[in-house]
C-alpha cells in the first residue's frame, strides 16, 4: 500500500463518480465506491443534517442518529446490524456542497493513508455534486461542463499531463467566458522559478517572454507563494507582464500535489467591467483541483514505471532495465566500438549476516553495497541489483583489460572497508566475476556469473576474469554433486574406522567413523572434496544421517561380540545438522533401533559450532548429553574459542589438532600449545585425544604431559569394518610399539 495505492484509488473513484448523471445516483455511487475502495462494509452521506444515502444497512435499519453524530464529530462508531459496533471515519465534502462522507469497517484500524484517501474522495464527490447542481440550474453551460467531465476521463485514462492541463485551461477560460488562461508549475530543479505548461489566449511573443518567471511575481506567482486563491480587478495597476496588453482583471488558484503548492491556474480578462465573484472563485477552484489531481496522477504513473524498472530496496536498476541497457550497449558495440564488460558481484557470507543480525541489517548491508558500487564506477556505467545479494555492473566501452581490472580492484577495496550495521561493525568482502566481449547479453551475464563463482570457490574476496575453461570446472563440480547425490541415495558410500587408543595401555577404546566415497566413474573422491559440496548442495543432512546409522549399527555388532569391552564410536556432526530441531530425537531413535547404548556413541563437533554460542546448540548438546551420548570437540584450539565455552557447554573430550601434536616433540617451547590444552582439560575434568600421532616419541611425550588418548598412523590407519573387526577380535587390542 502507500500513496501510490491511494492516488490510484482516487483516480478510479473520480472516474466512477463522474459517470453518474444525477445528484442522487452520484451520492449513492460515491458512498458505495468509497466503501469498496476502503473494503468497508458500510458508508453514508450526510447533508443538511440528514442521511441522504447509505450502503450496507438493510432497509429500515439505518442508524440515522448515530450517523448524524458521526457527521458532527461527536461519535466515532456506528452499530451495524449483524456485525456490531464498528469504527466510523468521516470526511467533509467540498466547501461548495456542505456535507459529510462516512465510512465504517468492522475491523476498523483506518490508516492515515486511508483517511487521506477518504478526504480526497469526499472532496471529489463534493466537486461532482456541485457540478451536477450547476448543470441542473445552468443549462447553457452544459457544453463546458461536459468539457469538465472530459477532463475527468482524460485523467482517469492517464492521458499525457500536458494534454490534460491544456484541457483544464481551455475549459476554465471557456466556462468563465474569459480570454486568457494558463497553468504554471514550479520547476522541480529550481523551486524559485515557475514555467507555463499550458495556456490559451497568449500570443507567441507573450509566451516567449513569460514562459519562465520567478515564483511570487504576477498573480499566479502570488497564488503559489501564498497557497490561496488571489483576485485582482485592477490588473493594470499590478506589476505584471500582461498589463501592457490591456488585461483588466484576473483570478488565480493554487494547484497542489500531496498538500504542497506546486503551481497555479490563472484566468484573466481584457474586459474593463469584469469582476470575479464567488461563482468564479468556486469554478476556478474546481478546475484547479482537477489540475492538482492530474499532476499527482502523472507523478504516480511515472513512479509506477520507475518502480517496474528499479529495485525498491536500493533504488538501483533491476534486472529488466539492466538487460535492456546491456542489449543497447552491445548493439552499439558491434558497430565498431570497444567491447563491453559485465561485472558480477556477490556478497560473501551474506546469509550469515541475515541469520545473525536479522533481515533489517541484511537490507542495510545491501544498501551500503549499492552505494559503494555506485561510487566505484565511471559516470555512464550502470550498477544494477539482480536480486538477493547479487549485483551487476555494466562497463561501457572498456579500453583495455587493465581498465576493467582497475575498476574491479577498486570495487574489492571499497567494499572491504568496515561498515556499521545495527551498531555493530562488520567487515564484508565480495567476490567479483568479469566477462568482456561482444556476444549476447544473456551470455555475457552468464559468463560473468561463472567467473564470480570461480572467485568464490578459490577463496572469496577476490575477482576473476572469465575464461572458457571455467565453465568446464563448473560442469565438473555439478557432475560431482550429481554423483554424490546418487551415491548417498544408492548407498555407494562406505565408512572407514580409525582406532583411538589409550596412551598408557594401547587398548582400542574408541573408533572414529570416517566417510569414504569411491565413485564408479570418478574413482576415489576424498572427503575434503565431497564434504564441502555436500554442505553447499544441502546433502549434508542425508549424508550425516547415513553415517550415523551405519556407524551405530557397526558399533552395536562389535558390542554384541565384545560386550562392555567394545570401543565407543565417534561420529562427526556438522553445525547444519545440529541446527535441526529434531537432531536429539533422531539420534535417540537411531540408537534405539540399532540397539546401541547411548554411552557408546561420541558426537564430534567442531569448535566453530561452539563459537556461534547459540542457545539452540547448547540445548541440543545438553539433550544429547541427557541421552548419555558423549561430546567431543574436534580441532580444539584452532578457532580462538574462549574458555567460557568449556564451562558453558556440556563437553567430555577435547581433541588436540595434528599441527600441535606435530610440534610436541620438537625443541623446547613448541609443545606449549598441546600442553596448555591438556592442562585446561585437566582443570575441567575432560579427557584429551591427540590427533595425528605419527611418531613413537610423540606418543611418549603426550603421555608424560598427561594426555589420555591418542589417534594417528602411529597406532593405526583408518580401516574398513572387517579389518577393524580383526584388530578387535584378534588381539583384543592393538599393540603399538611404544
Amino acid at each position, binding site marked *: *500500500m502507500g500513496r501510490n*495505492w491511494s492516488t*490510484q*484509488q482516487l*483516480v*478510479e473513484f473520480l*472516474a466512477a463518480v463522474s459517470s453518474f448523471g444525477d445528484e442522487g445516483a452520484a451520492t449513492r455511487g460515491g458512498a*458505495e465506491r468509497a*466503501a*469498496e*475502495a*476502503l*473494503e*468497508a*462494509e*458500510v458508508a453514508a452521506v450526510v447533508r443538511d443534517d440528514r442521511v441522504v444515502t447509505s*450502503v*450496507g*444497512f*438493510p*432497509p429500515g*435499519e439505518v442508524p440515522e442518529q448515530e450517523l448524524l453524530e458521526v457527521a458532527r464529530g461527536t461519535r466515532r462508531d456506528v452499530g*451495524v*446490524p*449483524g*456485525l456490531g459496533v464498528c469504527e466510523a471515519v468521516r470526511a467533509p465534502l467540498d466547501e461548495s456542497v456542505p456535507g459529510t462522507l462516512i465510512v465504517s*469497517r*468492522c*475491523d476498523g484500524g483506518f490508516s492515515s493513508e486511508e483517511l487521506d484517501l477518504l478526504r480526497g474522495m469526499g472532496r471529489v464527490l463534493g466537486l461532482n455534486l456541485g457540478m451536477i447542481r450547476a448543470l441542473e440550474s445552468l443549462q447553457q453551460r452544459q457544453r463546458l461542463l461536459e468539457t469538465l467531465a472530459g477532463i475527468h476521463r482524460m485523467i*482517469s*485514462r*492517464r492521458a499525457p499531463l500536458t494534454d490534460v492541463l491544456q484541457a483544464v485551461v481551455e475549459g476554465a477560460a471557456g466556462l468563465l467566458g474569459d480570454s486568457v488562461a494558463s497553468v504554471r508549475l514550479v520547476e522541480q530543479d529550481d523551486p524559485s522559478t515557475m514555467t507555463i505548461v499550458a495556456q490559451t489566449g497568449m500570443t507567441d511573443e507573450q509566451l516567449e517572454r513569460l514562459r519562465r518567471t520567478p515564483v511570487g511575481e504576477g498573480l499566479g506567482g502570488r497564488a503559489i507563494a501564498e497557497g490561496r486563491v488571489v483576485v485582482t480587478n485592477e490588473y493594470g495597476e499590478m506589476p505584471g507582464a500582461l498589463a501592457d496588453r490591456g488585461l483588466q482583471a484576473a483570478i488565480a488558484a493554487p494547484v497542489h500535489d500531496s498538500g504542497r503548492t506546486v503551481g497555479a491556474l490563472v484566468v484573466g480578462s481584457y474586459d474593463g467591467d469584469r469582476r470575479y465573484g464567488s461563482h468564479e472563485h468556486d469554478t476556478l477552484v474546481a478546475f484547479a483541483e482537477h489540475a492538482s489531481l492530474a499532476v499527482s*496522477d502523472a507523478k504516480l*504513473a511515472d513512479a*509506477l*514505471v520507475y*518502480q*517496474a524498472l528499479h529495485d525498491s530496496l536500493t533504488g538501483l536498476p533491476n534486472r*529488466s532495465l539492466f538487460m535492456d541497457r546491456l542489449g543497447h550497449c552491445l548493439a552499439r558495440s558491434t558497430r565498431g566500438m570497444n567491447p563491453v564488460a559485465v561485472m558480477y558481484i556477490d556478497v560473501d557470507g551474506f546469509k550469515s549476516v541475515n541469520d545473525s543480525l536479522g533481515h533489517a541489517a541484511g537490507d542495510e548491508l545491501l544498501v551500503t553495497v549499492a552505494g559503494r558500487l555506485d561510487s566505484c564506477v565511471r559516470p555512464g556505467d550502470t550498477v544494477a541489483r539482480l536480486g538477493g545479494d547479487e549485483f551487476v555492473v555494466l562497463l561501457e566501452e572498456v579500453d583495455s583489460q587493465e581498465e576493467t581490472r582497475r575498476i574491479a580492484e577498486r570495487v574489492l577495496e571499497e567494499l572491504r572497508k568496515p561498515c556499521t550495521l545495527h551498531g555493530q561493525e562488520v567487515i564484508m568482502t565480495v567476490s567479483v566475476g568479469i566477462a568482456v566481449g561482444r556476444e549476447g547479453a544473456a551470455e555475457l551475464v552468464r559468463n560473468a556469473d561463472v567467473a564470480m563463482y570461480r572467485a568464490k570457490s578459490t577463496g572469496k574476496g577476490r575477482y576473476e576474469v572469465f575464461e572458457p575453461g571455467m565453465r568446464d570446472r563448473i560442469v565438473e563440480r555439478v557432475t560431482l554433486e550429481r554423483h554424490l547425490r546418487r551415491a548417498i541415495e544408492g548407498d555407494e558410500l562406505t565408512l572407514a574406522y580409525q582406532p583411538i587408543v589409550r596412551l598408557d595401555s594401547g587398548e582400542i577404546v574408541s573408533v572414529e567413523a570416517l566417510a569414504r566415497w569411491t565413485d564408479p566413474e570418478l574413482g576415489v573422491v576424498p572427503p575434503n572434496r565431497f564434504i564441502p559440496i555436500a554442505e553447499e548442495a544441502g546433502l549434508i543432512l542425508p549424508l550425516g544421517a547415513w553415517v550415523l546409522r551405519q556407524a551405530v549399527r557397526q558399533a552395536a555388532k562389535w558390542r554384541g561380540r565384545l560386550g562392555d569391552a567394545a570401543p565407543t564410536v565417534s561420529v562427526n556432526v556438522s553445525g547444519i545438522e545440529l541446527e535441526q530441531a529434531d537432531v536429539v530425537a533422531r539420534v535417540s531413535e537411531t540408537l534405539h533401533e540399532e540397539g546401541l547404548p547411548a554411552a557408546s556413541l561420541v558426537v564430534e563437533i567442531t569448535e566453530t559450532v561452539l563459537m556461534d554460542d547459540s542457545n539452540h546448540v547448547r540445548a541440543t548438546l545438553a539433550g544429547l548429553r541427557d541421552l548419555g551420548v558423549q561430546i567431543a570437540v574436534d580441532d580444539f584450539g584452532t578457532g580462538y574459542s574462549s574458555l567460557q565455552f568449556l564451562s558453558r557447554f556440556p563437553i567430555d573430550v577435547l581433541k588436540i589438532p595434528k599441527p600441535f601434536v606435530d610440534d610436541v616433540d620438537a625443541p623446547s617451547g613448541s609443545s606449549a600449545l598441546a600442553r596448555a590444552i591438556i592442562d585446561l582439560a585437566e582443570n575441567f575434568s575432560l579427557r584429551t585425544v591427540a590427533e595425528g600421532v605419527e611418531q613413537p616419541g610423540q606418543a611418549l611425550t603426550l603421555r608424560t604431559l598427561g594426555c589420555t588418548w591418542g589417534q594417528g598412523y602411529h597406532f593405526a590407519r583408518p580401516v574398513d569394518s572387517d579389518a577393524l573387526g580383526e584388530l578387535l577380535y584378534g588381539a583384543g587390542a592393538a599393540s603399538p610399539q611404544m
Partner: protein
Amino acid sequence: MNVGRDRWMNVGRSAESDAARAGSEAAAVAVNGREAALLVVFCSHEYDHAALLRAVNEQSGGAPLIGCSTAGEIATDGPGDASAVVVAFGGDGFCASTSVSRGASSDLRAAGADVANAVASLNGGHDERVLLLLTDGLAGDQQEVVRGAYGVAGAAIPLVGGCAGDGLEMKSTVQFHGSEVLTDSVVSAALGSDGPLGIGVRHGWRKVGEPMLVTKASYNRVYSLAGEPALDVYLDRLGAPEEARHDPAAFTRFALTHPLGLDRRSGEEHVRFIGEADFEERSIISIAEVPQGGLAWFMEGDSDSVLRATDAACADAVDALGGSAPLGVLAFDCIARRGVLGEEGIKAEVDRVSERVGNAPVAGFYTYGEFARTRGISGFHNQTLVVMAVG
C-alpha cells in the same frame, strides 16, 4: 439458537441421459421421502430442463427450488459433465425463501436488489442466514448484482453462489426457479439455519513478472498494457505456445490458466479471467471489468497451487463453523481451475474437498464466475473456489 430442531442436508446425483429420469433419480436420493425446505439443482446444459424440473418437483412435492446449468457438476462421488445434481435442505432447523429477477441484463443492480428481498421473507427465527445467488454470467458485470443485493441485504448477510455455465460453449446459460427455466436472470435463495454457516474463498494463482499499467481499456476489453498492444504483451511475457498466437480456441485454452491480477488494498489481488483475444486489434478480453489506469499482473497456476487453495478454502469454511461438524458443503469452483487441474485433477480435488469436510455430502458446479461476500462490500470473483460449509 434452537439447537434442538432437526436439520438435514442430502445430495443426489444421476448421470441418466433422459432428463426426466435424471431429475427423478437425483431428487429421490436428495429428498429421501422427507419434506425439504429448499432444493438446489445443478445440471448439464444439454438436458431438457423443463422435463428435468418437472420430475424433480414431483419427487419433492414442489418444495422451493433454484438451480442452473453448469460447466460441470460436482457431487460427493466426484465431478461429472452430463449429470444432474440435486441438494436438499430439510428439517425445522432450516428455512428458505426463493426469488427471481427476469431480464436481468437491462439493470443488473436492480436485479440484485430484487432477489435480495428473499432475506426479508425468512421468518423461522433462524440465527444464521445466507443469500445464495445463481446468475447468468453472460449477462454483464456481475459486481453490479452484488452491489444491488448488498444494498438490500446489508452487511449482516453473506452472499455466495456462482454464474451458470454451458459446458464452455459461452453461448447461453439457464437458471431455474420453481418449475421455470430462464435465461438472462438472477435467482436467489435466502437460507436460514439454526447451525453455523462457514465460507472459504481462495484462488491459488501467483504473479508472474513485473507489474504493468493498464494503459488503455474499456470495460472488459484491454487494448494496451504498459503502452504496448495488450495481446502481444500477454503472449510474449507469458511465452505462449505458437498455436495460441493465431488459433482462438488454443488461445482460450492457454488463457484459462493465465489470468490477469488486479491490485487491491490488502495486497490480495483480484483475479480476472481472460476469455478471448482479438487478433486484429491485438486486444484481450476479460469476462469482468478491468479498470484503465490500474496496475495489473499476469498470473499462472499449476495443479499444486490450485489444490493448495482447495485445502485452504475448505479449512477456512470448516474453521468458521467453530468446531461443529459440517452437515454438507456447497462448492462453486471456477471453470478455469478445472482447466489447470485437468480431468484427473478435478477428481482429486473433489476427493480432497470431501476429505477436508469429514466426508460430508458435497454439491456444486464449475462456474463462469463466483460470488462470496463475507467482509467488505465487493463479492464477485473470477478463477476462485468458494466453499460454504453448512454446520
